[in-house]
């Protein structure tokens, strides 16, 4: 569903951060994206999410050449991709419930039509009793789960999570991982960026490793 061919990227006139990346992400697949800090994991996720364009190479998203997508096509494509940012990007003036419901609200849906879905999802990620709280009073782990719930509420075909276990203690990290595995079992492709080797070793999954700008796939 996502395919990269000889993709290269540099920021401005700087060195090429990513070089000749070629890989694909298949439906219902589960993979880790790994590499040392500063290797370009976040950058690669931005490319998949089309928050930026590659300097060269081809990116194919859901069967369409990314360069052929106009600005007005982007919202519809983005709704098929769920993203969990490293820094969560929750809106502080909205409640947890409202933050999670945001992807549905911007589709001009009535709150009554999605209320039970959102509440159910919040319970699933363990935030059932925090839905009226505002992000500033949530703990790091709670924010993380709120961000994950927001990424999932629109039933995306693929979930990109950037260091989702970076800010939480090991037991919670394992719980979140079980949540992703469960989600994958239900049919969503999952890409998890992490530099935590221990965490990856607990799961027998595909690994995309970036090192010195090049990507190697370990099936």
């Amino acid at each position, binding site marked *: 569903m996502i395919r990269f061919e000889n993709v290269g990227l540099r920021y401005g006139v700087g060195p090429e951060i990513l070089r000749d990346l070629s890989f694909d992400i298949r439906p219902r697949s589960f993979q880790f994206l790994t590499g040392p800090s500063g290797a370009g994991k976040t950058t690669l996720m931005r490319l998949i*999410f*089309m*928050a930026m364009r590659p300097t060269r190479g081809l990116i194919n998203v859901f069967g369409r050449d990314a360069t052929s997508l106009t*600005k*007005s096509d*982007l*919202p*519809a494509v*983005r*709704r098929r991709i769920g*993203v969990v940012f490293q820094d969560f*990007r929750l*809106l*502080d*003036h*909205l*409640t947890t419930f*409202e933050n999670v419901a*945001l*992807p549905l*609200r*911007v*589709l*001009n849906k009535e*709150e009554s039509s999605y209320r039970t879905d959102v509440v159910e999802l919040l319970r699933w990620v363990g935030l059932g009793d925090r839905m*009226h709280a505002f992000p500033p009073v949530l703990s790091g782990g709670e924010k993380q789960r709120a961000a994950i719930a*927001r990424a999932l509420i*629109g039933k995306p075909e693929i979930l990109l999570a950037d260091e989702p276990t970076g800010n939480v203690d090991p037991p919670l990290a394992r719980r979140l991982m079980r949540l992703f595995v469960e989600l994958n079992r239900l049919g969503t492709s999952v890409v998890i960026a992490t530099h935590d080797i221990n965490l990856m070793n607990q799961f027998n999954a595909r690994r995309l490793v970036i090192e010195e700008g090049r990507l190697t796939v370990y099936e």
Partner: protein
Amino acid sequence: MRKPSQLIPENTMAGNALTIVVAIMCFLACLTLGSVTLVRDASREWQGDILREVTIQVRPSDGRDSAADAAKAASIARLFPGVASAEVLSDQESNALLEPWLGTGLDLSDLPVPRLIVVRVSDPDRVDLAELGLKIKAEVPTATLDDHRAWTSRIQTMASATVLVGLSILALVFVATILSVVFATRGAMAGNKDVVSVLHFVGAEDGYIAREFQRHFLMLGLRGGLAGAAAAAVLFLLMGLILGPSVSSGTGEQMSALFGRFSVGPIGYFGALGIAFLIAVMTAVTSRIAVYRYLAETD
């Protein structure tokens, strides 16, 4: 169940600052508009008053009975079309007019003081003052008609100059309002970049984002604009009460002599309301343009 939060945060510093800027600029614009209508109304009133009253002077002359001449001139004037009345001022009335200059207790019969006839015009458009002047002169050689025409035209020029200056100030205030609203709106928008980018990646269409901002800033502009307009309206009302015709304090009389009744007409009040809405719409449009510009820069 609580009311859903607005997508764009309310009561932020930049937002409150913008409300205040809008309120102040709207207040100033309304005040300027009110003053312009006031000057215009006052000049109309002066002109009306001046055109409605002319005087005939009968100079005393040896061998003529100035009282009889005055009575004759008055009766000619009275019969002239468009004239409502013509009254010869009595000695006491003439005395009263001259008192400030000549002091009290003087006997008019000793002095060659002209007799005055006050002619009230019922219809300034219909009466031909030049014709009246000639007619009176023909029958009473010592009588002359003073039609204040020089005054009227001078006041007219002055009033239209004042209105013109007022309108230019109004135009300047409008430009200043537009600029400050544009910049304050853009400042408030800059604080909302995070909101825009979050809305963006959760898949909101550009149109949706722009509409949200437009609505938010329209409400904000309306709040500021109506507050400014209301303050101006209250000021108009207070000035009307303090300097109105019912109060006969010295300054009140002087002011009303100058400005007529100090009351801003409906144009002032409706204009204030119009300015408030105009400014609110301007705020909304500016935010819309700013959002689209921001969205065009990011993708």
